[in-house]
């Protein structure tokens, strides 16, 4: 398969995937995926349910390693380093490639301890440093003003949208370069969704973001590039505007215009 790259090669490639196949036991979920994800851009993954978006996302931080019986074939390079090479430090990889899950998963700890969880694991011990990281991360995710008076209260008392932004802040606290977001706003009301989208807009300058979404408008609003997946294959990848207005493939056109899926 010809590698799908963005036409204007101005953007530097952060993640380079070549001929990726992925299997859950005997079932193949991804077929020959090749894609170059540009650095410091938002890339949206769209496609009908079950087409492998989450699976693909989870190969990028090797989250699928935790599922017994999974196999892969092909190459994934981040910053030109093969992340499946035997010498890869998975811990370092996951620190560099943060992930925000579809269902927000705050830990049943205080807001402070949620954000400090990652830094503590990676060896930050000093309380003053931790406080600084917590404030900075919450500030980045736009949550600081809402929670600064109750940092030591349980994170589970926050609203759904706040919990999701907390999870984003928690991911930011370990200072990643890439953020993988799997439908981060799918469980949220429109107002909370707007907040998340604004946040992604904010973060774009500093992070390489890949976001899975079912919502075409959302993809169009937040992303510079879009990849359309169908039945485990990457059908089309390109600048979001082009993909939505002048799709190259009939399949893509049908999907983005809402004729199926």
């Amino acid at each position: 398969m010809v590698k799908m790259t963005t036409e204007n090669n101005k953007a530097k490639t952060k993640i380079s995937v070549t001929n990726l196949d992925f299997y859950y036991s005997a079932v193949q979920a991804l077929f020959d995926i090749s894609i170059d994800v540009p650095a410091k851009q938002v890339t949206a993954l769209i496609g009908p349910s079950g087409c492998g978006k989450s699976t693909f996302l989870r190969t990028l931080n090797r989250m699928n390693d935790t599922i017994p019986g999974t196999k892969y074939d092909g190459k994934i390079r981040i910053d030109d380093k093969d992340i499946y090479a035997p010498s890869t430090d998975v811990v370092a990889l996951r620190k560099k490639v943060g992930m925000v899950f579809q269902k927000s998963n705050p830990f049943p700890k205080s807001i402070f301890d949620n954000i400090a969880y990652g830094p503590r694991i990676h060896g930050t011990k000093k309380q003053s440093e931790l406080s600084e990281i917590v404030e900075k991360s919450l500030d980045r995710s736009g949550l600081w003003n809402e929670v600064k008076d109750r940092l030591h209260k349980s994170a589970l008392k926050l609203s759904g949208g706040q919990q999701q932004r907390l999870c984003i802040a928690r991911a930011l606290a370990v200072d990643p370069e890439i953020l993988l977001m799997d439908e981060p706003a799918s469980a949220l009301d429109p107002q909370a969704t707007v907040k998340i989208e604004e946040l992604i807009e904010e973060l774009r300058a500093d992070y390489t973001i890949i976001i899975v979404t079912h919502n075409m408008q959302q993809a169009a609003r937040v992303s510079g590039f879009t990849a359309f997946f169908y039945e485990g294959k990457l059908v089309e990848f390109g600048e979001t505007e082009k993909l939505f207005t002048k799709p190259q493939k009939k399949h893509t056109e049908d999907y983005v215009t809402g004729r199926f899926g």
Partner: protein
Amino acid sequence: MKNKSSEKYVYAAMRFTTYLVILVIAYIIIDIVWNGIGTLSVEFLTAAPKKSGAEGGIFPAIIGTLYLVTGTICIALPLGMSSAVYLSEYASPGRLTNIIRLAIITLAGVPSIVFGLFGLGLFVIFLNFGTSILAGSMTLACLILPTIIVSSEEALRTVPQSLREGSLALGATKWQTIYKNVLPYSIPGMITGSILGIGRAAGETAPILLTAAAFFLPKLPNSVFDQVMVLPYHLYVLATQHPDVTKVRPMQYGTALVLLLMVLGINLVAILIRGHFRKRYRW
């Protein structure tokens, strides 16, 4: 309409059986308290038995039981909890893991006298611990290991997978994830389930009969290699082996009451621990 009335009957039947069970338990408790309360006294609780238990107290048996329970906890809790962590967090699901689980469940159904024989063979004779607190604690630990493992695994399963993934995704190792983001939430459940099992072990006679219990030993043990008197066995001796069984009836009831109170006390601790942690962690 018909459905509704049959539902009513089922409901009534279930309520009836529940009351029946409560009634039986209440009868047992009332019987023991009624007949035993008169025997309770400072002397009974703090003195050594005299005249093969017909007079004096049961102090050595209380202490012996406490030692055995403590020893059992110290051995069984760490072993059982780490096995559970291994089985549910590390072992890859498959044939072998299933066989191990099946073995553990089967072990839970093995009669306690068999554990007694096993303890006698392994700890008392082969490892040469003699009839002792150590051998008895180890035997009781074996007896309740299945309970501890099963209830600990249960507690680990209540921690949502998403918390593990969230931690791993931040770059935590598997052990860091378990230690910082799984165990803190599941330990209360693990401990509660385990203590309930230990409460049961405290009342067992058969396993310690062969491994730890002394028939009549009115002095306190000096080391873990000493024999001890224990409440359930003392009760058994008073009720069946004493030359004048009817005369020592009050002593039997008193011993039974103390044993009952001890087991209730252990269970109460379990409930308090659970209540304490429930308030701290919720999801």
